[in-house]
């Protein structure tokens, strides 16, 4: 479990604002935590809720004790007066709204302190939003609501204006890498995903997906083939590559991997070993960087980017990829 101190490392402004409202005892009735996915909004809500209910709180510190019955139960999801609302599918459903509304009208179970967290708050239906609004207009004394959203622009102005807004910023590559390592990703994968600026949740999901591991392998093999004039990159493209990368999104992903491959070649040419992303392929890359000159690598990066554009313009994927392979093949 994280602490404010840890969270502050990569969200200094947001954490400072929240901590100030806690230690100065100026907790608002409603907050809007907004920012890109994987930036710690949920962790911050959890810490906030723990501190709110914590039985050993220190007035001068915003940290919860993490050990009392309340803190523990918040982590296990058993605190009866903390309510998480999360859209079930496309929107927050009717029974969720009814639940929310009922909870607004009842006193708490253990005390009169209540804490609500609404995730993906932009997905509230107008009806749900209006009910929430009604509550925000006349909150009961001991209630705090935290709305979490990645798309604050899609929220009703009337709601946003009643919340204290806390912005969560995109993580820097280094922080993201660290976070991914914390999530148990292998160094090489963490490096790759953080270089792609993938958000933490998605990265964890992809990491568990065999498709991704396979995709990575295929791209490296494809490059082995095209960089070797004795091999048929063209054949490999049809027999393996295109069978794995189907559909626009996965094709784009394949091209992203190719780009990284070339960037790494360039990094080696510039003696920037630290910047290499495919660190587990270092030996291979070292070999290839003797074959592909710096200026060649640059040119080929343009070819990959050009192919990306053509895909976006709905050029037939097979044609676009064939064309690219012809350019790359030694």
């Amino acid at each position: 479990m994280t602490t404010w101190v840890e969270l502050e490392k990569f969200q200094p402004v947001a954490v400072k604002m929240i901590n100030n409202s806690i230690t100065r005892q100026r907790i608002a009735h409603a907050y809007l935590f907004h920012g890109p996915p994987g930036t710690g909004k949920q962790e911050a809500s959890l810490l906030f809720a723990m501190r709110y209910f914590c039985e050993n709180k220190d007035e001068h510190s915003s940290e919860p004790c993490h050990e009392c019955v309340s803190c523990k139960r918040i982590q296990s999801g058993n605190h009866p007066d903390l309510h998480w609302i999360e859209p079930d599918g496309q929107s927050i459903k009717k029974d969720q709204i009814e639940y929310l509304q009922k909870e607004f009208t009842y006193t708490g179970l253990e005390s009169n302190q209540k804490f609500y967290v609404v995730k993906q708050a932009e997905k509230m239906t107008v009806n749900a939003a209006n009910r929430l609004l009604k509550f925000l207009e006349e909150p009961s004394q001991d209630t705090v609501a935290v709305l979490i959203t990645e798309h604050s622009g899609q929220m009703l102005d009337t709601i946003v204006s009643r919340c204290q807004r806390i912005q969560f910023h995109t993580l820097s590559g280094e922080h993201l890498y660290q976070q991914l390592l914390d999530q148990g990703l292998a160094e090489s994968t963490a490096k790759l995903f953080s270089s792609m600026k993938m958000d933490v949740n998605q990265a964890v999901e992809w990491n568990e997906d065999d498709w991704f591991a396979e995709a990575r392998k295929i791209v490296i093999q494809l490059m082995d083939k095209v960089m070797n004039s004795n091999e048929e990159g063209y054949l490999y493209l049809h027999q393996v590559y295109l069978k794995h990368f189907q559909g626009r999104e996965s094709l784009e992903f394949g091209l992203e991997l190719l780009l990284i491959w070339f960037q790494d070649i360039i990094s080696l040419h510039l003696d920037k070993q630290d910047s290499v992303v495919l660190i587990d392929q270092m030996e291979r890359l070292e070999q290839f960087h003797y074959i592909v000159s710096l200026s060649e690598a640059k040119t080929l990066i343009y070819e990959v980017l050009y192919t990306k554009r053509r895909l976006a313009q709905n050029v037939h994927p097979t044609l676009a990829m064939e064309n690219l392979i012809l350019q790359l093949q030694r």
Partner: protein
Amino acid sequence: MKILIEREPLMASIQNVMKAISSKTTIPILSGIKLEANDQGVKLTGSNSDITIESIIPKEEDGVINIHEIIPGQIVVQAKFLPEIIKKLPNNQVEIDVDDDLNLKIKSGHAEFKLNGQDAEEYPQLPMLQTENSFDLQIDLLKMLIRQTNFAVSVSETRPILTGVHLKLEENLLELVATDSHRLASRKISMNDAEELFFNNVVIPGKSLSELNKILDETQDTIQISVTDNQILFRTKNVYFLSRLLDGNYPETSRLIPNQSKTVVKVNSKELIESIDRASLLAKDNRNNIVKLVTKGQNTLQITSNSPEIGHVEETLETDSIDGEELKISFNAKYMIDALRAIDSDKVSINFTGAMRPFVIRPEEDDEQILQLITPVRTY
């Protein structure tokens, strides 16, 4: 924790607390029953967060031994299978054993069940009993109070506070009020020794009171009632019933009750119920279940109802007396029948102040304690 307990009282207790457990709960721990053993006995708790029921099995009661062996401790066990397991055990005695890893062993005769338990620390912490802030009522009286008011709570969520019964205690007078904004039920009783007690704006969810009413048997035993900030507790000898309250300010209702009248009808309650019930046979089809009541000469009332597609019903009813102005008024038949049934008196007195104003129904005698108010329907 370890107990050796008689199966029957355990089974009865489980059935008690199961009434509070809901299969669809958002708080995982509430799908379990909490077992707590101390030197005095065993306490079981079940909750759906709105209501919580605690059932106590004393070690010994009236010379009968319920629990033969106790090593104190606590555990939460999944409620889903427990009742069936205990019911089907072969022996009259049950041994329940919990180890440090929260594994639960249930032994009876040659049968042995192993269940995974959950840490009792995860279970909600209920407010402590505050006996100094409590008063006593006879159970059958409490049940009557609920019956006479709870039907009038609002079922719509537009004004959530009205979905509860308002409880007020001051100067030894306990008052319960419920209204859905179309009708209002009020019941007062005098208390003997509650001078020190004062509370207002305690609003108990109507659903909780219905549950409580189901659980309580019609006895003359006393029940102890205490109120905290966020919960109300009803305590009988071995069963504690807790309910969360409604958060908000209950509207001032005393000003709604008219203190004068233009037309007063005294009538046999049962006859009036029956005749309105007949009229509403057709009225159920129209939108508001409307019947119309018209005063006629010689102390008679005319009761009619009209449903455009079905037909018309009309009947006259002899009253004991009609005093004051002539009157023609329409109202929801169901409200009238509910009110008359709640009053439960042979003769009632109905005070009208005009066709567009609420009217008051009271028992003809003993008219201080109960009052039902109904707002009419304006027809076109």
